[in-house]
């Protein structure tokens, strides 16, 4: 994170902490720099740090009338209620499985696509194909869900038109628990393949051409070059991206699940964040929902820090 040297201008000197020096610093440019930084500071304070403080309601019986401070403490009661509830295991399983399958299928596809694209002669054709694959990334989750609802509609969608045309029976895909994860992962791969491949495509184009030329002299075939030059060339990037993604294993984006699930598919679709929304916002059990959310945050924190630590040791690359 920290890369700038203090070489330019009047950087921090040994005198930095002498009394009066800080006042001179403020006068010189410090005041203005702090003024520039003020909106950012306020934003993080109000919308990140105050909610972090507010999370103590997870250990209280929060009542809007009493406020955070005067609401009574209850310790870990809400957590215990959650761990004992029939939802706990189901939410944990669904959250994990949905993000695990997303990673399992969503992670390799952009790499394969980048490797194939790298083999295609014709600069213009390559860039057109690559640009087309970005498009789904910029479409809103609501529209992606809308595409699924219309294409899979049991009464008039074209998928079921094919199914019945082949003599099958129309399937109400979005009300079948067995289909939920498949549809979630498939639409995710579709939406993110092109965008996710950018970093690999860039990595592949940075590989030294001489390596390929030398391999040609040695009579290496195309697959051989892909396997022995292209893939190792982006391996550090792959490892880094994998570790960072592993850190997010217990986070499932709220939006797409919320838009695609319904009471018929809770069994396979309900995840921690959607449960927090239902119990907290819809049923206004603020403290209980905050506890469930905090549980998820802590698990994520542990995973992120752990995998980030491994990443830093293995690839000298980390989030910070």
């Amino acid at each position, binding site marked *: 994170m*920290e890369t*700038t*040297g*203090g*070489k*330019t201008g009047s*950087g*921090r000197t040994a005198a*930095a902490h002498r009394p009066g020096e800080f006042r001179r610093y403020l006068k010189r440019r410090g005041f*203005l*720099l702090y003024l520039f*930084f003020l*909106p*950012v500071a306020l934003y993080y304070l*109000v*919308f*990140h*740090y105050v*909610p*972090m*403080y507010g*999370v103590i309601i997870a250990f209280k019986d929060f009542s809007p009338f009493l406020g955070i401070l005067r609401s009574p403490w209850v310790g870990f009661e809400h957590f215990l209620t959650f761990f004992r509830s029939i939802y706990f295991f189901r939410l944990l399983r669904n959250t994990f499985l949905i993000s695990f399958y997303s990673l399992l299928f969503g992670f390799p596809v952009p790499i394969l696509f980048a490797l*194939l694209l790298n083999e*295609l*002669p014709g600069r213009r*054709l390559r860039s057109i*194909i690559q640009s087309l694959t*970005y*498009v789904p990334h*910029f*479409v*809103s*989750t*609501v*529209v992606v869900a*809308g595409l699924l*609802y*219309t294409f899979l509609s049991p*009464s*008039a969608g074209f*998928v079921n*038109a094919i199914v019945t045309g082949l003599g099958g029976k129309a399937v109400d895909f979005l009300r079948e628990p067995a289909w939920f994860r498949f549809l979630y992962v498939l639409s995710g791969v579709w939406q993110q*393949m*092109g965008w996710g491949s950018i*970093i690999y495509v860039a990595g592949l184009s940075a590989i030294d051409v001489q390596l*390929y030329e030398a391999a*040609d002299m040695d009579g290496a075939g195309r697959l051989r070059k892909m396997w022995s030059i292209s893939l190792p060339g982006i391996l550090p990037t792959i490892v880094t991206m994998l570790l960072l993604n592993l850190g997010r294993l217990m986070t499932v984006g709220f*939006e797409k699940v919320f*838009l695609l699930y319904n009471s018929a598919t809770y069994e396979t679709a309900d995840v921690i964040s959607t449960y927090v929304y239902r119990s907290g*916002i819809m049923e206004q059990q603020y403290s209980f929902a*905050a506890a469930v*959310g*905090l549980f*998820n945050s802590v698990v*994520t*924190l542990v995973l*992120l*820090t752990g995998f980030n630590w491994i990443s830093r040791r293995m690839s000298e690359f980390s*989030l*910070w």
Partner: protein
Amino acid sequence: MIPYGKDRVANGILAAVLGLMALAMVYPFLYVMFASVSDPLVVARSPLLFWPKKPTLTSFRYLFSVNLVWIGYFNTLVYAVSGTALNLVVTMLGGYSLAHPDFRGKRIFLFLIVITMYFSGGMIPLFLVVKALGLLDRRLAVILPVAVSTWNLFITRSYIEANIPGELRDAAEVDGASELTFFLRIVLPLSQAILAVLILFYATGHWNSFFDALLFLRDRKLYPLQVYLRELLIMETQMDAMLNDAVSDRAFLVLTLKYSIMVVAILPLLVAFPFVQRYFVKGVMIGALKG
């Protein structure tokens, strides 16, 4: 240049496979466009469309018979324009100060910002904060909580660090330019590329944003387009208002209506995309270089 394989057959197959993949990425949108202007009954019978069949604008007539979509569009425009303007000011000022070699406390501030990438209070405490600030059901509720994105702040900082040479700063200082003059007259003009990247990232973020509105807005008059889209596409709550005079083949008409709703929602993006996509990629690359 990479020495590409000379095998014509292999290259042909490769081009075909990649072409099909690219087609799979955009065909759903083409299908939606063709289906929205085709006869509903024909669409239901023929699964694949490569052009409109029995073209008709019936569904658009039904769609615009109620003004939901326009209200949503208007609100989304308001949020996107004002939100992005705020995003730009805050992010540029913050990115500049965090890139400044003589910004005291930088390490601590950066550390405190990075922490928020690892840990958050979660949905409920954020909701209570927004509620306590009296922002529920106010337009600011979908603007202020997303005033800065950490990723964008960091790529702005990297960009300024890499593109504003220290010598320039020294020279400006010798000439007696204040920090403010330097920022306005030197840094901003040299930051056009990052400004374009920020505008695109933030604006698409606002355009596609759905969750904040769901959480913080109850007043239907304030709903952005995406919330109305959910009602129309998924909950089908507004269909009756639009289709009150349609009696036969309702299911098919509902579907075609949904296609035309999606066209209205994605057309601006599809039109603008070819012209702006290189800036998106640029943004990713600035971020990737820095880590």
